[in-house]
Structure formats: C-alpha cells, structure tokens
C-alpha cells in the first residue's frame, strides 16, 4: 500500500464513522425547499477531525495533502447525501487560497472552523472562464453582484474575484458587512445565494492575488472544484446504486425477489457499467491533475470526468426511482435527497453538455492520443 492509499483508507474509515448518523432521514428531508441555516457546531466538529483546509500546504497550517485526499472525503459525503457543505465551504476555498498570497490570517480561520468560507466568482447562469468580470474592485472596496454562491452565510468569509482596471483580482469580504446583501435560496441539499456588493470593504487591506497570479488561482480552483464535485457525484451515484441493488434483492413480488427478473438484472448491470465508466474517467482526471495541473489535456480530462459523473449520477437516480416503484416517489423512501444532490452537483461549475463542448475544444488542442493505456 502506498502512503496515499493508506491516508485515503484512514480518511474513508473515519468519514464513514462520522457520516453514519447522517444517512438517517431527518425532519430536514421532509422540508425540501427550506433554506438551511449554517450549522456552526457541526462545522467545528469537522475542524476537530482535521478535515477543514485539507488541501492547504503546511506553511498555511494545512496537512500538505494534494487533491486526492479531499476527493476521498467528498466521495464519502456524497455516499450518504450529506447536507454538510464541506466541498463548498472548505475544499473549494482551500484550493483557491493555496494559490494566493496574504492569506496567513485567512488560512487559520478556515482550518479552525471559526468561519465558513464561500467562493463568489460566478456572474451568469453558468461559470464561464471567458466572460469579462463585471464586479469591480477599487481602493479597497468591491461593487457588483455574484450568483450561485454555494453555502454562503452571513457569518461567511467570501472569496470574491473582481476587475481592477481591467485586471483580475481576488479579495476577501466579510459577508456580514453592511455593504453586502445575501439573497439565499435552496439548491441541492443546501443553499445558494445571490450576493450584492455595494462598496464592501475587503478584509486584510489588500487583494489576495492580482493579475496572472489571480488567473492561475482561478484556473486551479476551477479544476480542483470540478474534480471534487466529480468525486462527490461518484459517492452519490454509488449510494444510489447500493440502495437500489439492496432494494431489488429484497423486494418480493410474484413470490420472487424482483432482482430475479431479467429486465431488472440487465438494467442494474447497465447502471453498474456506467458507474465504472465514471470512476475510471475520474481516476484518470485526478492523476492528470496531480501530474500536470496546467496542461490542456488535464483540463480536457477534467471536463470529461465532470460531464460523465454528472450524467451518470442523474441516470442512476432516475432508474433508482423507477426500480423502487412507489417507494421511489415518496420522501420516506430516502431517494429524494440523493436526487437533489445529483441535480445540484451535475449543474454546479458546468453541466455535462457544456463540459462535453469544452472537452471537444480542449481535446483538439491537447491532441489526446487515440491509443492510450
């Protein structure tokens, strides 16, 4: 076993333990459109486990892991369809801070669980790398609006990108500041917010990154975020498939388990093949990212993985409902939260259609080999 494998196994085991209780249905599951409040106490538990800022380097107070370890945890959060916004409030911000300067005050705030973080970087319906930033930064203040800021709370530290004289910058803003307004709504198993900045002051007095450094931080965080989402989608998918296999094996009709009917068996096999395809392409994207994060071929691999994992999660979700029969359609059947997680994660940071188009254009640039193993 390699060191990474050992770490992954340990993380997986402690995550399974921590998340066990979360697989139970709670009142939240029966109030689907409610905008959940941020659970500060639970968040501090994650800090005690050492999971917050897992991707931060040692000099910033993190354990110096790569993305694989964070992805292991995301997969486990997905497997139980957890409501804890680990990906949005820890993994994504850490990926961003890793490539910024002036973060020595922010990093401990992230790792000790004192404040949740949220990344505010999207201005349109989907996140596009090519659209010009309309949010402005000038003389220590931010003005503009960001959309689909996942898991933002008034207690959050917002990491915001903006344009300063046409150049990109990353800054930190206190979401509780008077010049910040959050319109929160329910997405997936948590919340998203449209965030309005009206001359909001930044934290720390200067940007976290400017110019080329800011661009690099954006690119890295996008890639890391998409990989983390793909990992969480794989968890959601496998959670759904396991539930479905157990259900068809136990559900008796016409005096036989419905798993004895060939039509059910073959459909389960097709879902299984889809999950294996998703995991294989995710593994490849993760290896490419660890080896050559900046390469166009890596970007192509990540887009392929994001598209595949999103498609497969929703495909397995649809089939899970059908094979659960009526129990698939009622909340007490336990599939609803998985479906909401799948729909949200499929959309977040780019839906499959968009990523397949990216894949095609990047693939042309990177000349992905036709024969490869």
């Amino acid at each position: 076993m390699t060191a990474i494998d050992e770490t992954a196994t340990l993380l997986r085991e402690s995550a399974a333990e921590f998340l066990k209780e979360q697989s139970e249905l709670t009142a939240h599951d029966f109030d689907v459109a409610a905008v959940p409040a941020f659970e500060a106490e639970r968040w501090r538990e994650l800090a005690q486990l050492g999971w917050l800022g897992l991707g931060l380097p040692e000099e910033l107070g993190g354990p110096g892991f790569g993305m694989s370890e964070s992805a292991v945890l995301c997969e486990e959060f997905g497997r139980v369809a957890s409501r804890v916004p680990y990906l949005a409030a820890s993994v994504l911000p850490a990926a961003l801070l890793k490539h910024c300067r002036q973060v020595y005050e922010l990093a401990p705030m992230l790792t000790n669980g004192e404040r949740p973080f949220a990344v505010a970087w999207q201005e349109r319906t989907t996140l596009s790398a090519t659209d010009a930033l309309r949010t402005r930064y000038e003389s220590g203040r931010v003005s503009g609006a960001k959309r689909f800021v996942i898991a933002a709370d008034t207690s959050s530290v917002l990491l915001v990108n903006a344009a300063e004289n046409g150049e990109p910058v990353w800054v930190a803003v206190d979401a509780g500041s008077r010049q910040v307004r959050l319109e929160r709504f329910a997405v997936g198993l948590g919340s998203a917010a449209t965030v309005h900045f009206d001359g909001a002051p930044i934290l720390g007095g200067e940007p976290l990154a400017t110019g080329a450094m800011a661009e690099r931080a954006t690119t890295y965080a996008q890639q890391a975020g998409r990989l983390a989402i793909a990992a969480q989608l794989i968890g959601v998918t496998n959670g759904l498939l396991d539930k479905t296999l157990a259900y068809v094996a136990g559900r008796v009709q016409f005096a036989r388990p419905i798993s004895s009917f060939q039509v059910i068996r073959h459909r389960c096999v097709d879902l299984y093949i889809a999950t294996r395809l998703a995991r294989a392409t995710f593994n490849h994207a993760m290896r490419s990212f660890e080896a050559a994060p900046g390469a166009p071929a890596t970007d192509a691999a990540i887009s392929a993985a994001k598209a595949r994992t999103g498609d497969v999660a929703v495909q397995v979700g649809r089939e899970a409902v059908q094979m659960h029969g009526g129990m698939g359609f009622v909340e007490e059947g336990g599939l609803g939260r998985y479906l909401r997680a799948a729909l949200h994660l499929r959309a977040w940071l780019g839906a499959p259609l968009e990523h397949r188009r990216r894949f095609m254009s990047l693939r042309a640039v990177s000349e992905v080999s036709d024969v490869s193993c």
Partner: protein
Amino acid sequence: MFPASRHDDRNALPDDEFRRQFRSWLETSYPAEFRQDHRRPFRRLRGEDHLRWIRLLHRDGWRAPSWPREAGGMGLSFRKLVIYQQEMERISAARVIDNGETQLGPTLIHCGSAEQRAEYLPKILCGENVWAQGYSEPNAGSDLASLRTRAESDGDDFVVNGQKIWTTHAQECTHIFTLVRTGAPGQYARKQQGISFLLIDLKSPGIAIRPMLTIAGETELCEVFFDNVRVSKANVVGELDRGWEVAKALLGHERVWLGSTAMASQAIKLARAVVVQTGQQHDIGVQDRLAQLEADLYDYRRLYAEMIDDIATHESQPGPEVSMLKIYVSELQQRITEFSSEVAGDFGGAIGDVRIGETVADLHWQWMMSRPLSIFAGCNEVQRDILARSVLKLPEAAAGK
C-alpha cells in the same frame, strides 16, 4: 517435442524497448495495403492475405505472443501483450480471425496430449493449418450445451453426424475444432456432460461447407455439415465426455481483447470525416452528438486501461467483470456507425464505396458489420446475465425456495 522459439526472448526486454522494437518492425514490415482506413474501417484479412501476414510474423519471431516459448510462441507477460495490441492498433493493422493461435493453441498447450501438441502447434504457427471453430449449431447458440452433433464410437474412430453454423471463414480453413456429443442418450444428468472436444480435418469425406451471405454482403459465415465423417479417437482433446470443461478453460485473456477500442477508433475517425466532408462541422446539433460519442470513447478507454492495468499488476486471470468491456464497446461502436450513416444525408442509404467530399467510404458496410458485434462471442444479453449473477450477485430466486 518440437522446436521452441529460436528467436531472442523479447519478454526479457524492458517495456519501452519492446515497444520500440515492435513498432519499428511493424512500420517496416506491415503491408500498407493491409491497413484499416476510412474505406474499410474494420478490415479483416482473409485467404492469401491472411497467410502472407501470418508467415511474416512467424518469420521474424512476432507470432503467437501469448504462447510459451517452449511451444514456439513469444511467451509475453500480460503487460507486454497489452503493448503488442496497442502497437497493432497504432499501425491500423487489420483484424485477423486466427482461431488456431488464439483458441486452439492455448487449449492444446493446457489440455492436449504431447502428440497433439507436436502435430498441430507448429502447423498453426507457420500457417499450414488454419482452424475454424465449430461450436454453435442451429439450435445451440447462447444455449450452447444443447448441441446435438453426435460422434458415435466405431472401433478406433468416431463417426460424426450433424451440423455446425456461424463457422467463420470455414471455406478457407483446413481444420475445425468442434464440440460434439459422445455420451449415450440418458447417460448424464446435465447437458454439459457427455460432450467431447474433437479435432476434425475439413478435407475428410462427408463434410460439406455452405457459405451464408451476410447483410453486409460478405460470405464470412458458413454452415458445416457432417455426414458419416470418420475421425480418429486420437483427435479427442482432454478427456472423453469432458469437452465442455476443455472449451471453457480456453477463454482467459482473449475475453479482454474483445474490449479493444481498435474498431471503435476507426469508426470515430470515419464519423469525424463524414461530419467535415458534409460541411456540418459548425452544426451544433451534430457537434453535440459527436461530442457525446467522443466522450464515450474517451471515458471507455480509461475503463479499459484501468482493467487491463489491474490484471497486469496482479498477474491475475480476468474475472467475470471483463464482460462489461465487450458490452460497452460493441454498443458504442454501433452508436458511432449509426451516427455516421444518419448524418451523411442521402449517402446514408448508399451501398458500396461512395465519394463523400474527399473521403471514400462504404457506410452501408460499416453499419452492417457493426450489427454482429453484440451477438458473437457471447451475445450482450448473456454477458449481462453473467454480470448480474457473478459481479452484482443479484438473487435469482426467493430465499429458502
């Protein structure tokens, strides 16, 4: 017994050096006219072309990569076999249907007698004997154990009567290895028992071969009729009445190569060419459908690579999960060829070679030739049954019943 390979042990080479040597040999030796191209994306070599290629491989020590060196093969590890396949794919080498090398050889090496190995293996290597596979019968396809071709004992011989079907290229083969029923009616409880693995010379009196025209316009499949054909009892491989086990043992790594992306890669190249040559490279609807197929192939390559790497790393035999490779890649190839025919405008109905812009292609042939991929070598429905039972372990009947 018979000559072991007289060539250097290429399995001892470092992987990179092995790849370099095979690539360089292929580039200088592989006949250009045998390569797959748009016109014949799934080209197969037959007859004299097939023999010419086999003799070239044999002459230069690249024949029978998976056979042990003592049997005259290359004795390659699984990882080197993967490289061998990759390089074949890279040069767009045509497919060959070589049952002698891929199926009978390994069977004789495992289950055959010393005399059988000495008699048949060298002739497979040099191309003197070309073997057909005689398993399926009109009423024994997926349910192969229902086969009825009989071999009755008569002194030192068997007398064979019955019929085989779907025998690929039988008209170009010299011999056929068969499964025939040797057990007396009522002798065994299970239909898999009482079957023997029998080698038959196709020149024997009483054999008739009838080619069947396929919907792709080729005569690649045959029926083979046996009318009182005398076959020596020395030609039984393994134990009498235990041929089912002999046949099952030979699948091994060959099942992995069924998942190769070689043909799907050729199909997608043709699909790209059709899109460009019909001026649809900026049609977003067409592009999105092509992107889906490209992403499917790209992701599938990752799965194929991952499973191959797993087998190579653990030096294990492939498990039942390799069935998913054949299912996915065969259906993907069908979707790709379907796409090409569908977006090609009125060329979608053309039969035979037509010029589409700068590309010459036969869309009818490639569409038709993709149909049997989900039927042969264990139809996809049977493969799904295997996965449901052996990998997902889904219960088939109520507990306690």
